């Protein structure tokens, strides 16, 4: 019954999305006030119905209802509750249902809480949101029904890919989806603004919190995903330039650019057409990412839930929405007046540089990700991986770091070069000191890693420079947000460069009792013992680690055996110290009774994700600051 209720809710949600689109169309074509007023409640209804469908699927998974095909294929009653729930989105149909649920909830959220936008652009925005939802509901209902039943329910299910049975997976996709699909709001705002010819600072101020919100989740999702890959895949890598990772990075790059250009539009009424374009591009990147992941057109470590036959459907939706939005842009952009003028050396100019460099990186990532598909059309199989992205995007990213350090220190409207040089004196001095330290003390691994270390130091100083000489208690929250987010970039960059420059690796075949060294540590392989989990058994290695005279600690990496589906995974054991992480993996045994052991000492690697968290925190403070100021203005206006 629950499965049927879910399917009914899904059909109803699709019908309501159609209604939302039609009502918005009628309202904008001169319909009565009643029609205009009906769009908001309809959008809320659609969101509630989508959520209901999703909760039905969760219930079916929690109860391990083996008459539902999706549960049979992706779950098992012996799994812990957390993984029965996360199994809902650990597969194609369920993850697409989560996708449209977030889309529906985003539409409902606009309808409920957006009061700054005029009624006409708001209704146009909701109409666009309904149009997107309609297509993806159709995709679910006609090509990916999550509630399909099986004729002969088996005694139990096939289980979930053990790699995905991890707390990281429980939270990583929903967070990422809130970001991905949250960007649909920016897309719909842009379409709404184009339809009603209403592109200006008011539009930008209304759109900014939504973009910020989606961007915070995207940042958190990517950071969490990177850490998950780092500890779960067991090779110490944290970013692989894998197509699916790129699919999450591209919307982030576009959203980051949008976040900055929308500020120019809100404060200075510049970059009108560009901001609208970016809003369209950002969600287009989300949809392209969904297509790349769901179609399985590119081989990827994430290829656990793909079906090529569905690719065509998503590709058609993509062509419809991106093509439609671009056509609308081409038709209407002539009527959007150019924004105000600005000087080359100004905050606006710095933000244009930010947008230029972010867009070039986005272009490089997009071309690099799609190039193997293009090449295979010419009959050539080739791979584009880390060496290309490092060489092509790395230097541009470092240039962006320089722009990021200087940008917040440039005045709005107009500035003088000598005045800017004065403000940059301390950060430049810090960069010089760091350069000396890196040349003297750091091992040279690559230009990129050395330059990263130097620039991270300069950026860390420059990012807090906007606070100097200010009354900290009276500094607006969104300025704090900017400072913390930029500081987060410095911290993350430092972690990446430190990992590249200082990592120590020891790969050995060891018998119990042997001792090896890695970096400053002495590691003793004490032995092995069996271990048991709720749905796995394991061989657990015990390693005693000693650094100098400090108290020893123990690492316990495992080889885990899952019965359902039968798989072996290696669980890394990671010790987090103040200055980095010691990472141990237990491999297979050879005929001579020696075990493969992989040890890495990764100084300051944790900074990568701490920086990511700081960036997201900066975004959250900025969002709070904007909301608070808007509320104050609102109260003043009524006082």
């Amino acid at each position, binding site marked *: 019954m629950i499965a049927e209720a879910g399917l009914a809710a899904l059909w109803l949600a699709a019908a309501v999305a159609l209604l939302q689109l039609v009502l918005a169309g009628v309202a904008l074509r001169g319909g009565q006030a009643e029609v205009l007023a009906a769009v908001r409640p309809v959008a809320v209804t659609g969101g509630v119905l989508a959520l209901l469908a999703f909760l039905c699927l969760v219930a079916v998974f929690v109860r391990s209802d083996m008459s539902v095909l999706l549960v049979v294929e992706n779950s098992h009653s012996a799994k812990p509750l957390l993984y029965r729930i996360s199994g809902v989105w650990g597969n194609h149909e369920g993850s697409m249902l989560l996708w449209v649920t977030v889309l529906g909830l985003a539409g409902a959220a606009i309808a409920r809480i957006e009061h700054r936008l005029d009624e006409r652009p708001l209704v146009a925005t909701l109409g666009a949101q309904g149009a997107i939802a309609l297509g993806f509901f159709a995709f679910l209902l006609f090509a990916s029904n999550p509630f399909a039943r099986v004729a002969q329910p088996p005694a139990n299910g096939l289980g979930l890919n053990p790699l995905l049975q991890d707390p990281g997976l429980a939270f990583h996709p929903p967070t990422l989806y809130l970001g991905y699909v949250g960007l649909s709001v920016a897309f719909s705002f842009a379409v709404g603004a184009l339809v009603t010819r209403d592109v200006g600072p008011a539009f930008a101020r209304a759109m900014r919190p939504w973009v910020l919100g989606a961007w915070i989740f995207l940042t958190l999702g990517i950071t969490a995903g990177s850490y998950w890959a780092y500890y779960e*895949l*067991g*090779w*110490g*890598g944290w970013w*692989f330039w*894998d*197509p699916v990772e790129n699919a999450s990075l591209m919307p982030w790059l576009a959203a980051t650019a949008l976040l900055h250009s929308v500020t120019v539009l809100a404060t200075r009424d*510049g970059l009108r057409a*560009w901001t609208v374009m970016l809003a369209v591009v950002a969600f287009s990147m989300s949809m392209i990412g969904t297509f790349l992941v769901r179609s399985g057109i*590119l*081989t*990827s*470590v*994430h*290829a656990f839930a793909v079906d090529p036959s569905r690719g065509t459907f998503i590709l058609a939706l993509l062509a419809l929405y991106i093509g439609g939005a671009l056509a609308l842009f081409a038709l209407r952009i002539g009527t959007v007046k*150019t924004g*105000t*003028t*600005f*000087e*080359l050396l100004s905050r606006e*100019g710095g933000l*244009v*540089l930010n947008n*230029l460099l972010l*867009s*070039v990186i986005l*272009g*490089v990532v997009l*071309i*690099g990700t799609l*190039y193997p598909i293009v*090449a295979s059309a*010419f009959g*050539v*199989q*080739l*791979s*584009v*991986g*880390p*060496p*290309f992205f490092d060489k*092509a*995007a790395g230097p*541009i990213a470092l240039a962006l770091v320089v722009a990021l350090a200087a940008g917040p220190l440039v005045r709005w409207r107009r500035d003088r070069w000598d005045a800017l040089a004065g403000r940059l004196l301390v950060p430049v001095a810090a960069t010089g000191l760091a350069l000396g330290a890196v040349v003297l003390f750091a091992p040279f691994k690559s230009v990129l890693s050395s330059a990263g270390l130097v620039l991270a130091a300069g950026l860390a100083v420059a990012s807090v420079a906007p606070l100097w000489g200010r009354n900290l208690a009276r500094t607006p929250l969104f300025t704090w947000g900017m400072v913390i987010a930029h500081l987060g970039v410095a911290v993350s960059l430092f972690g990446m460069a430190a990992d590249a420059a200082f990592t120590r*690796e*020891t*790969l*050995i*075949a060891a018998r119990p009792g042997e001792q090896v060294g890695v970096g400053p540590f002495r590691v003793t392989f004490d032995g092995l013992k069996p271990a048991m989990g709720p749905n796995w058994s394991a061989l657990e290695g015990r390693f005693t680690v000693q650094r100098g005279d400090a108290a020893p600690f123990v690492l316990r990496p495992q080889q885990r055996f899952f019965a359902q589906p039968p798989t072996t995974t*290696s669980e890394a054991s990671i010790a987090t110290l103040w200055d980095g992480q010691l990472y141990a993996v237990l*491999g297979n045994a050879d005929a001579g009774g020696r075990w*493969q052991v*992989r040890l890495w000492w990764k100084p300051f690697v944790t900074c990568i994700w701490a920086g990511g968290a700081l960036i997201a925190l900066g975004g959250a403070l900025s969002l709070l600051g904007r909301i608070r100021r808007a509320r104050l203005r609102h109260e003043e206006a009524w006082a």
Partner: protein
Amino acid sequence: MRAWLLPLAALTLVAATSPARYANTQLADPAKEAEAQALMVTLRCLVCQGQSIADSDADMAADMRALVRQRIARGERAGDVRDWLIARYGEYVSYDPPLTALTAPLWLAPIALLVVGLIVARASFRRRRS
């Protein structure tokens, strides 16, 4: 001098007789190991879903790691080892696509995008100024 040469020779002998030895253990020479490591992260594991041979548990990746370490230990240059693997498995094996007529647009893309972007940005500044 002689005292440490003997175990070293024995080590080389063991390495020559059991190729899989270097699949999961490092070369004794840190410089050579670093060179091999740098090469391995740019080679694709052919049976995996988008992983390099440096971070894959697959048997084939292990064999390829052993092969790369052996050839580097023998004194071959990283570029030659890559070329040999490409000749054997095709360009698909290298994550660093060699510059050919087909890949020229890929490698030129960053510069082309930067130039186009600068022109767009500059033109918009000039237009705004006038």
